[in-house]
C-alpha cells in the first residue's frame, strides 16, 4: 500500500498563515482535505485545539471551516445564493462584505442584475477567475475560524491576488489560515511554509529560511522568478 502522505507533522496557529507548496501530485490537496474530514487519517492524528477531529461531529467541525476547493464549484442559482451557500440566513451586509473582500464586487455590480444575476450550472457563465472569487466569497461569508484555500488564487491575476489577500488579512484576524499555492508570490509572506515533496515534508520555515536551506524550495522559486526578483524578496 502506497500512501499519498507520510509522516506529516506541523502546527498551524490562530492568527497565522500556514502555506503549502510542492509539485503536482505531492499531496497538498490530500493534506488539506483531511481537515474537513473528507477522508480520515490512516495513522496518526489531527487535533483542533487539542481535540482529535475524529471525536468531533462532522457538522460541528465543518461549521468552523471556510473551505475553498481547488476546482471552483458553483451551483445553479444566483450570485447571492452562491455566496450565502454556507450560511442560510446571511444578511445582505454579510453577502456584500464577502463580495467586497473577495474582489467580486466590481464585476457583480457591472452585471445587469447585480447580486441577483443568474449562475449557470458549474458557473459556466462567469469567467474562471470570477468563479474562483465567488467560491472564496462563499467561504468568507461564513466567518470561519479556519480558512482552507486549496490553490484557490490560481485563476487570479497577480494584482487581484495581492489585493484580495491584503483585504482578506483584515478579516482573518484570529483565524487560522491555510493556503495551498503554486506561486511563490502568493505565499511569500506566510508565517510558515510547508514544502511537500512526494507526500513527505521536505522543509518547513519562512520564505527567507527556506531560500537559505531548502533545495526543493529554491528550485521552485528560481523557476518562477529571475535572480534579481529573488534578491528583492529577500531584502
Amino acid at each position, binding site marked *: 500500500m*502506497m500512501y499519498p502522505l507520510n509522516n506529516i507533522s506541523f502546527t498551524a496557529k490562530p492568527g497565522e*498563515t500556514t502555506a503549502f*507548496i510542492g*509539485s*503536482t*501530485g505531492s499531496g497538498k*490537496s490530500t493534506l488539506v482535505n483531511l481537515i*474537513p474530514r*473528507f477522508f480520515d487519517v490512516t495513522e496518526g492524528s489531527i487535533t483542533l485545539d487539542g481535540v482529535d477531529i475524529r471525536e468531533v461531529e*462532522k457538522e460541528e467541525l*465543518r461549521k468552523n*471551516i471556510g*473551505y475553498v*476547493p*481547488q*476546482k471552483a*464549484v458553483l*451551483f*445553479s442559482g444566483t450570485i447571492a445564493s452562491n455566496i450565502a*451557500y*454556507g450560511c*442560510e440566513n446571511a444578511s445582505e451586509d454579510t453577502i456584500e462584505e464577502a463580495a467586497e473582500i473577495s474582489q467580486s464586487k466590481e464585476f457583480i455590480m457591472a*452585471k*445587469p442584475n447585480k447580486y441577483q444575476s*443568474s449562475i*449557470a*450550472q*458549474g458557473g*459556466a*457563465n*462567469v*469567467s*474562471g*477567475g*470570477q468563479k*474562483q*472569487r465567488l467560491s472564496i466569497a*462563499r467561504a468568507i461569508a*461564513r466567518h470561519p475560524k479556519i480558512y482552507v484555500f486549496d*490553490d484557490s488564487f*490560481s*485563476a*487570479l*491575476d*497577480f*494584482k*487581484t*491576488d*495581492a489585493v484580495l*489577500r*491584503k483585504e482578506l*488579512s483584515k478579516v482573518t484576524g484570529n483565524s487560522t489560515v491555510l493556503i495551498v499555492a*503554486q*506561486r511563490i508570490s502568493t505565499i511569500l*509572506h506566510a508565517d510558515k511554509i510547508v514544502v511537500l515533496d512526494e507526500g513527505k515534508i521536505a522543509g518547513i520555515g519562512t520564505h527567507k529560511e527556506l531560500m537559505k536551506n531548502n533545495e526543493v524550495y529554491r*528550485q*521552485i522559486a528560481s*523557476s*518562477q*522568478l529571475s535572480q534579481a526578483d529573488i534578491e528583492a524578496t529577500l531584502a
Partner: protein
Amino acid sequence: MAHGAMKSGEKAKNFKKSLGKLIAYIGNYKFGLIAVMVFAIGSTVFNVVGPKILGNATTEIFNGIMSKLSGGSGINFDAIARIILLLLVLYVVSAVFQFIQGFLMTGISQKMCFKLRKELIEKINRMPMNYFDTRTYGEVLSRITNDVDTLGQSLNQSVTQLITSVTTIIGITYMMFTISPLLTVITFVILPLSVFMMSFIVKKSQRFFRDQQAYLGKVNGQVEEIYAGHNIVQAFNREEEVIAEFKATNKKLYESAWKSQYLSGLMQPIMGFVGNLGYVAVAIVGGILAAKGTITVGNIQSFIANVKQFTQPIGQMAQVSNMLQSAVAAAERVFEFLDEEEEEQKAENHAPIKACELEGNVEFEHVRFGYNPDKIILKDFSADIKSGQKIAIVGPTGAGKTTIIKLLMRFYDVNDGSIKIDGHNIKDFDRSELREVFGMVLQDTWLFKGTIMENIRYGRLDATDEEVIAAAKAAHAHHFIMTLPGGYDMELNEEASNISQGQKQLITIARAILADNRIMILDEATSSVDTRTEERIQKAMDNLTKGRTSFVIAHRLSTIRDADLILVLKDGDVIEQGNHEELLRKGGFYAELYNSQFEQTA
C-alpha cells in the same frame, strides 16, 4: 383559476400537436408498421371469427340433442370434430401472427429510440453554448435517457394494442351484425359513452403526465449537480437543505405521477362498468328474442361472447391511452429539444480552401461582442497574428481572454467586426472543420470516465499505444502515470477526482500534444501545475508549437515570458502590446501587474 384553465387548453393543443409529430416520426417506419398492421389484423381476424365458429359447434350440438329427443340421428360428431379442428388451426395461426407482429414492433420502437437518442446527442453538440446557461445538464440529459425510454416502452405496447383493439372492434362489429343487427345497435349505445368518458379523463390527466416527465428531469438535474459538488455540500453543511430541496421536487414528481396514474387507472374500471351495462342489455334483449325463437341459442352464445370481446378492446384502449399519454408527454419534451434553434453547421459560402489547409495567420478586425446585447465585453478588439507566432493574452480576470478564444472557435459569434484566418472569414468554414484546426487545453479540464490511455487517445483516436505514451512523456505526465496503480490502465472516475488537479491538466496537455493541430490554444492550461514541471513541459511545447500559431493565456507571468507577442487586455480592449522586455521597460499596466506580485500584503 382563469390562468389554470387557459393553461390546460394550451396543453390540449400541445397534446394534439405532439401526437401529430410523434405519428409523423413513426411514419419513418412505414413499411415495418404496415407489416405490423397486417399481422395484427390477421391475428385479430382469426380471433374474432373464433366465437362464430364455436357458436356453430354449439348449434350443432343443440340441434343434435333436439333431434335425438325427437328420435332423430343425434349429434353429428364428425361435423363437430371438423369445426374444432378448424378452430384449432385458426387459433394457432393467430398466435403465430401475434408473435411476428410483436417481434416487428419491438424492433421498430427500439430502432426509433436508438435514432432519437442519436439525434438528441448530435443536437446537443449543435446547440449554442448559451442554451445551457439557464438549465442544468442533468435535465437535458434526462430527455435522452428517461423520456426516450418512456417513449419507447409505451409505444411498443400501445401501438400493437391500439391496432389490435381497433381491428377487433371493427371485426366484431361485423360479426355481430351478421348475427343480429338489433343487438348490435344496443351494444353500440355504450360506444359514445365510452368515448366521452375516455376523452374526459385524458384531458384531465395529460397535464400530470407532462409534469411527471418534467419533474423527472428536474430530479435528474438536481441529483447530477449535487453529485458533482458533493464536497462543497459537505464542507458547507448543506446536506439537510439539499435533501429538503430534493424531497420537495421528489414530492412534486410523486404527486404528478400519482395523479396521472390514478386518473388513467380510473379508465379501466369505468370502461368495465360501461361494458357490463351493454352486456346486461344484450343478455335481456337476447333472452327475449331467443324465447320468441327469432334467434338461435348458439347465436346468442356467439353474440354474448362477441360483446365480451367488444368491451375488452375498449378496456384495452383505456389502458393504451395511459401509455399513449406518457408517450406523448415524453415525445413532447424530446421534440421540443429537437426543435430548439441550433447553430448552423455548414458555411453558406464556403471559403475556396479547406480549413485543414490553413497556415495559421489569424486576424481580429474590430471585433465587438457581448454575451448579452446590453453588456458588451469586447468593444473593439483588433490583432494581427502571423503564422508560427506564440501569442500571449494577459489581463485581469474577467477581461475577456477566454471570450476571445470562444469567438475564435465559434462557440459564439461576433456581433460586429470579423475574425479571419489566412484572410478567410472563419464564418466561411463549417464549424466542425474549423474546430479541428485548433488543439486546445481549456481552463476547465475535461476528462471522462475511462482509463488514462483512453483519455489521452481521445485527442487522436487512431493513435497507437506508443504514440500515446510519447505524448504523455512530452507532457511530463508519464512519470506520475507510472506510479499510479494500473499505470495507463488506471480508471478515472466520473469527476476524475481520483487524481490531482495538476495531474488532470497534464493529461489534457498530453491529449492536445497527441492531437497535433495547426493552431494551439492553451487557456490557463498549467495553472495548477507546479512551475518546475511547467518549465519542462514548456520545452516540449516549444518543440511542438514551433512553426505553428499558438495562443497562451496565463495569469502566471512566468508562463508567458517568452511569447513573441503579449497582448495586454483590460476591460475588453488591448491597452498594450509587445514582448516581455518591451512591456516591462514601458512601465505601463503590464509592468504594474508584474511587479504587484512582490507587494507586501500582510
